[in-house]
């Protein structure tokens, strides 16, 4: 059965995919709908949704909430993707080396990994951003640093299981080198779980970014959902829309990514495949 057919059997995953596609489209066409800078004062402050020409209202400085959401989508998706890719890259290297070679290398690499895992990830991210000065790069670095250990653990487990399989042993008897065995023989066989975990990590990355921005540790020059919520939290009771709509945007996006991740898991996990 083809991959898409299996994926589309999970209706929720398809729904998540559609929502995610809409969010990505919104991010791509943000400048087309709202050509102006989202930080620009667009009109009367604290206008309710639908009044004074604001679709989703304006905040205390008269910035357009809808414009902020559209432009913020770009930030969230970009940070989510870049940070996840970097984390997966580092995690795969650590996990592969430690699973494949075992012994002392494994011990050393896993102790390093554990060191990172023992620190609560969000506190660690705050610390890193605070040290490096808030900017989009430092946020990406912080998210990467707190999320790669999970990937390393997963990849290590897969490599441990696969390195003793007969097809890998056959490659040894052919005289294949270690790097080639890892990249060409083992890695393709553990791509499915990596993709699934990666997709869920994008959601976590978006949440961490929003959390950092909410605490005022976001890049001050870039509009993001977390920043909007942070800016509106003092008037949650008088102007609910400032916090609510970016919050809903985060909720919906993270939910959509999780649904897609779940769907990928169903479609790619051979054991689940057999069960159906």
């Amino acid at each position, binding site marked *: 059965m083809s991959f898409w057919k299996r994926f589309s059997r999970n209706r929720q995953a398809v729904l998540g995919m559609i929502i995610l596609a809409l969010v990505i489209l919104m991010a791509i066409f943000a400048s087309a709908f709202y050509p102006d800078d989202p930080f620009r004062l667009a009109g009367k402050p604290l206008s309710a949704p639908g009044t004074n020409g604001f679709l989703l209202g304006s905040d205390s400085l008269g910035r357009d909430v809808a414009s902020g959401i559209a432009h913020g989508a770009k930030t969230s998706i970009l940070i989510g993707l870049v940070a996840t890719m970097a984390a997966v890259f580092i995690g795969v290297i650590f996990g592969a080396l430690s699973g494949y070679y075992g012994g002392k290398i494994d011990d050393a690499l896993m102790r390093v990994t554990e060191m990172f895992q023992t620190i609560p990830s969000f506190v660690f991210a705050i610390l890193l951003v605070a040290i490096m000065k808030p900017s989009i790069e430092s946020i990406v670095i912080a998210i990467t640093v707190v999320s790669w250990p999970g990937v390393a653990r997963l990849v290590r487990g897969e490599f441990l299981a696969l390195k003793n*399989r007969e*097809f890998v*042993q056959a*490659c*040894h*008897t052919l005289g294949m080198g270690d790097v080639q065995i890892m990249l*060409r*023989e083992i890695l*393709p*066989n553990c791509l499915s779980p990596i993709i699934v975990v990666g997709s869920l990590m994008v959601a976590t990355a978006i949440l961490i970014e929003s959390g950092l921005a909410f605490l005022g540790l976001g890049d001050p020059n870039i509009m993001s959902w977390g920043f909007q919520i942070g800016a509106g939290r003092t008037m949650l009771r008088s102007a609910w829309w400032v916090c609510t709509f970016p919050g809903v945007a985060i909720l919906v996006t993270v939910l959509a990514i999780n649904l897609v991740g779940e769907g990928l898991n169903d479609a790619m996990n051979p054991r689940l495949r057999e069960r159906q």
Partner: protein
Amino acid sequence: MSEPVSQKLLDIRNLSILLPDGADRRFAVEDISIDLNPGETLCIVGESGSGKSLTARAVMGLLPGPKVRVGAGEINFLGEDTTKVTPERLRDIRGNEISMIFQEPMTALNPVMRIGDQIDEIFRFHVSMPAKERSARSLQLLTDVNLPDPAHIMRAYPHELSGGQRQRAMIAMALALDPKILIADEPTTALDVTTQAQILKLIKELQQQHQTGVLFITHDFGVVADIADRVAVMQYGKLVEMGTVDEVLNAPQHPYTQALIAAIPKLKPRAAREQSKESVLSAHGLRKTFGSKSRFGFGKQARVVHAVNDVSIEVHRGETLGIVGESGSGKSTMARCLIRLIDVDDGEIYVGDQEISKLDRKHMRPHRRRMQMVFQDPFASLNPRIRVGQIIAQGPLLQGVDKEESYKRAKELISIVGLEESAFDRFPHEFSGGQRQRIGIARALALKPDILIADEPVSALDVSIQAQILDLLDKIRKQMNLSMVFITHDLRVAAQVCDRVAVMQYGKVVEIGPTETLFGNPQHDYTKALLAAIPGKDWQAGQVA
């Protein structure tokens, strides 16, 4: 069908079992009728996918529903149709009147419960009996199945027992309530031959004591010859032949049965061939120990296993050396040491004149070409993500042969091992087990090796496929003047392919010699025990004579 139903224990009539839509055939089992009398052993024989296990499960109402279910027919158990009774009644029948033993006792027993508690459970669920009596009965059962120190085994967990002991415990559980029918689904397939012989004997004894009807499912005609009263042969879900053991084994009517029986390796050592004196592979004093070292220098060292203990062998050009032994005898470790997948602790390995046991991976690489390996499990030995042509061409490419030449060689080999040329661009999962094993052989041959090490190359295959692969190996060996180290637990196979045989036990070679001599006049006690345990040896001997 004029006999009264009550005489038969089990009377399966026109049973069909449906498979889910989209399966390769509509019925797992189609229109079969089988009956079983008290005190009788009926063997259901067939290759994998023939529907023999599902038939047995249907009797117990254990089909993996809801998609696999009984489509038509009836299963009469003493006049009661088990396909129609209520789930409560069915539960009552299971264990109480019909019980079952499985192939792998480790997965059939609960790993976190003591053996005694598991037997106790059966009594608790089915009969009311004071705890003391239950425990006495359990102890008696374990004694009946000839387990040593039954009081100790009552308190043991499944992982503390050996495979044979676990299967005995399973049999004790199955017989706890003195069932009328015992269904045995390949109960000895996972066991060593000597253990298998003991278990078969035990089943037979207990059956005679209790007048149990035994429905015995197996793929091994040797076992059939030893245990069956009557035999039913299944193919693709259909019953092709049924009759007494004598009729079916010695005068099979159906072409499929005839082919199956013809495919069984004969227990007659092959004729000795002319021997070359040139040694292509030799090992002297090989040692390999497994055991976890203590960490940081404290804590006692864990169990140490001498997997290979001072083994010396020599293989001549064009010769096939068999290494036989039971599980844990160290034969697979030995193979992996020879081909340098595992580093040896001590000893020397010569390929031709080259000593290879001390070479590191880089220096070993140029010598890899001369020795190649065929693996046991055709499903694990091919990378599922790489196309067949690529898998075969990989070796030459790595050894510096150019791309065009490698692909040409891969295509040649695909046809040599009897696959279609289109296999080149397909993925391993599109092939059956036997075809995959052919691909594995082609991969090993692509480097034009002098020595082929085959680690149980046919033990995962059905008997008819097994015969084809053995023929192929023999053909290739002749064509390319290969030397082979052939590792197997199956003495029939060893008799058919090997020029010389080495018998291994606990990491040592206890006896080595020409196949004919070794089979005809074994010297070591262990060799004698192994030969005596071969299932169905009398039947085969009768046929050969």
